[in-house]
């Protein structure tokens, strides 16, 4: 008998278990999205003239990467709704201030993190607000303007002599700057775990050690034993 089941058997409270909290699809989605966003940022800012990549090549890669990312998002949106995972992003404003205070101050003084990750709630309040911003504002601003942009040949004639194209490019560029800032903070925040690489390791392997309720543990043992280590 392992420690955890023993503890449970003895009726102790919420034993910690090593559980797969990020499923294979989630990890695939996360890392392929990360790769595509890096490619899009590098080629996009080349198209914008801030990076030196050849323009034609940058346009080609940017366009195909964008199409790939849109397909990925279509699948992932579908996945979020069929698995009910979309609820993870609902902002929980009650503990937001606490989390902000922790990152601004507590983390420097060695205070404990005010948030406890659970299977139902994988993200802290600040995280879900940030991801919601990403998924509701930055992401759609990018892909919506990007889709219209890539279809330029269809409306080029109509737009001649208007500000349609520069306006569109403005939205796309503004959202791209926000995206880069988001990614920068996001990458830095991954170093704030137990160790500098703890979160990245979790996102790669999918496993983290978190407390499970009795019901959750029982459910996983019965239904998804492979998620328990």
């Amino acid at each position, binding site marked *: 008998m392992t420690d955890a089941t023993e503890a449970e058997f003895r009726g102790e409270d919420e034993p910690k278990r090593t559980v797969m909290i990020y499923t294979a699809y989630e990890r695939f989605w996360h890392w392929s999205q990360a790769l595509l966003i890096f490619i899009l940022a590098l080629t996009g800012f080349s*198209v*914008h003239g801030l990076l030196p990549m050849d323009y*034609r090549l940058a346009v080609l890669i940017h366009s195909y990467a964008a199409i790939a990312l849109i397909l990925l998002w279509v699948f992932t949106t579908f996945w979020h709704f069929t698995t009910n995972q979309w609820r993870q992003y609902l902002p929980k404003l009650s503990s937001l201030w606490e989390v902000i205070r922790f990152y601004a101050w507590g983390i420097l003084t060695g205070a404990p993190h005010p948030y406890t990750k659970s299977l139902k709630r994988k993200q802290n309040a600040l995280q879900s607000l940030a991801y919601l911003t990403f998924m509701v504002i930055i992401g759609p601003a990018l892909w919506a303007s990007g889709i219209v942009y890539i279809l330029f040949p269809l409306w080029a004639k109509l737009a*001649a002599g208007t500000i349609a194209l520069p306006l569109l490019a403005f939205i796309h560029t503004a959202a*791209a*700057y926000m995206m880069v800032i988001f990614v*920068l903070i996001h990458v830095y925040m991954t170093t*704030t*775990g137990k160790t500098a690489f703890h979160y990245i390791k979790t996102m790669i392997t999918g496993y983290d050690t978190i407390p499970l309720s009795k019901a959750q543990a029982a459910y996983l043992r019965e239904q998804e034993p492979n998620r328990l280590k």
Partner: protein
Amino acid sequence: MTPRAMVLTCVGLFFLLAGYGMAGDRFGTPELPVSGAGEAKKYQEAHPPKPPEPPVTGQQSGPMFGKTADHTKFEALKGPFANNFEVSAACVGCHTEAEAQIKKTIHWTWDYISPRTGQRVGKENVINNFCTNAKNNEGMCASCHIGNGVREGEEYTFQKESSVDCLVCHDRTAGYYRTPPTKGNAVCATMFEGLPPIDYPHVAQNVGLPGRENCGSCHFFGGGGDGVKHGDLDTSLKNPPKELDVHMATDGANFACTRCHVTKHHAIAGSHYEMVAHDEHGVGGPGELRQAATCESCHGTEPHPKPSLIGYQLDAHAARIACQTCHIPEFARGGVATMTDWDWETAGKLLDGAGYYEEEYTQGNGEHRHTYWSIKGSFVWGENLTPTYKWFNGDMRYTMPTEQIDDSQPVVPINDVLGDASDPGSRIWPFKEMHTRIPYDAGNKTLVYNHLWGDDDAAFWGNFDIAKSIEAGMEIEQRPFSGEIGFLPTVSNWPITHMVAPKDAALDCSACHARDSRLAKVAGVYMPGFSRFGWLETLGLAGLGLTLLGVVLHGGLRIALRSNGKGEE
């Protein structure tokens, strides 16, 4: 009935009906019942023969190949001919309408009223910034002009009832040439001495449709010499390689000028006085030969290879960019230079009491070009030149000799290219800019007529006295002249449309989509890679910088305090 039998029956019925229908079509009516002459007569009375329908006029026959007449067999062309005037008389003996057709065209009249700007233009009306004016120098100009009535000693006039010179366009022996009908001063007349005699019967019997040499005999030499004026038209196009011009290349399509400059009743499409800057019509109907000299009239409006992401994007460029802008990356690249700067003020210097020249420029094909010539002034030449790009709606506004000019401008446009980014009919076109300091009336602030050619003592090309020649020019044209001569910096704009490079030599995207864009000076269009959003870039980069700084500070503090919090549980 079995299914197989049903199918066979149906097929059989089909052929029976089809056969009946075909026979009916071919013979018009089913055979008459043969039952006596009386019935046949009755039938004919009831069905009187229809009168023949007149043929429909204006039908398109499509391009013809080969010919049905051998000009060597025409008695009328056996000669002898004393001059080209007599040859033309023989031509119009058969080609009865040719002369009337020609006389309606701008090739003959040098006179054109622009329907769009309302200006009366054409060589007879405008001032240019080469030899400045055709008017009152017609003797020289007529070495190109196809008017044929003037013989030595006669005054040249466009109104004269005279025969057209057919040979300059239709000679296919290279054995024909024109010289100025009036002699000019001794200083110039020598240029036309010692030329070989013309074998008129031979030339007349070997006429054909105009080739590049024919059109080129005038248009390659605009502005007073090979390639001087246009930069995209010079003798290198007589026998060009593919790299120089895909259309005219002898090892390529080998087009004569009229392949694109589609001609109807001797009226040739594509004068720069009536340009189509944005052809959205394209190729027209299947097999239709549009009388338009646009790229689109052959290539259509969506010519780039598809399906391809880049192909669609390139097609979209056509809404704002002329084909020529990408496909003619440089002009004057056939080994013949074009003139870019000309200063009239230095004209008239003499060496030992006589005019002289300097030939300090050696062009690609090894020939030397004048850098100074007493009769014209100083010149600057260029080859493999990058065009200047401007918005163009097909119209140009000419600075006319009758209007007052603002001579305080740094440069006065001889022809202003019209069009702008806000007009969907405008596109970005490539131009050759010609910069010349020309003499002008600094008192009245007008352009002037300069009397250059003639054997009189007022002609500049003889007396080298610009005050005298301008005074004479203004007097001939009955224009007021203050007597005060200044030199005015001017620019004229020549659309670049020949010397189309092979497709893999077209401009790369990054020629424009970059910080050092070729189109940097063309205002009003958003160009990814070149355009910036001002404060957004500042805000974005500042945000990025502050975020980085925050990360470094926060991370640094964490390291310094050796604290990682306890992390999330």
